[in-house]
């Protein structure tokens, strides 16, 4: 109980976070972010680690621009390599066809041993940006 409360509070303090729900039963922390945020993925992983948890697979909904086969998240200027999700290989092709456009991507990141190391975004699905 204390663990969940602490990690929830720590995640909520990250600038740009709108709400956090933690379920230790499910081993899941769902973070919703405010429009226009500049939050970085590694900030969340580091916060989870500092609060006694190990971050694992992270599903995200992220809006960005497709450039040279990568996704640029302009809020942070981060560039993410795109990789196929085995269950949805066509999703990556669909994203690559949106070169130069803003898209909303549903995908997953898996942190490495060093949470600051860049990892690719495995693409599950997409919709055109608004």
């Amino acid at each position: 109980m204390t663990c969940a409360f602490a990690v929830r509070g720590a995640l909520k303090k990250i600038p740009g976070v709108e709400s956090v729900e933690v379920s230790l039963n499910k081993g899941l922390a769902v973070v919703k972010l405010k429009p226009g945020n500049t939050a970085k993925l590694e900030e969340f992983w580091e916060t989870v680690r500092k609060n006694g948890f190990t971050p694992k697979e992270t599903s995200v909904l992220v809006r960005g621009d497709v450039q040279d086969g990568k996704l640029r998240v302009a809020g942070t200027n981060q560039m993410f390599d795109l990789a196929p999700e085995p269950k949805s290989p066509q999703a990556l092709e669909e994203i690559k066809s949106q070169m130069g456009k803003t898209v909303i991507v549903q995908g997953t990141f898996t942190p490495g041993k060093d949470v600051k190391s860049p990892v690719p975004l495995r693409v599950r699905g997409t919709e055109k940006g608004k």
Partner: protein
Amino acid sequence: MNRFLITSLLAFALSAVPVHAEFLQMDLSIFCMD
């Protein structure tokens, strides 16, 4: 003067472009360290 005006207008125009790019939601799988 003209160059300054153009530069200012350009800077204003660029700053006015909405940046629609960010993380919307994250579902973090977390496990307690032993």
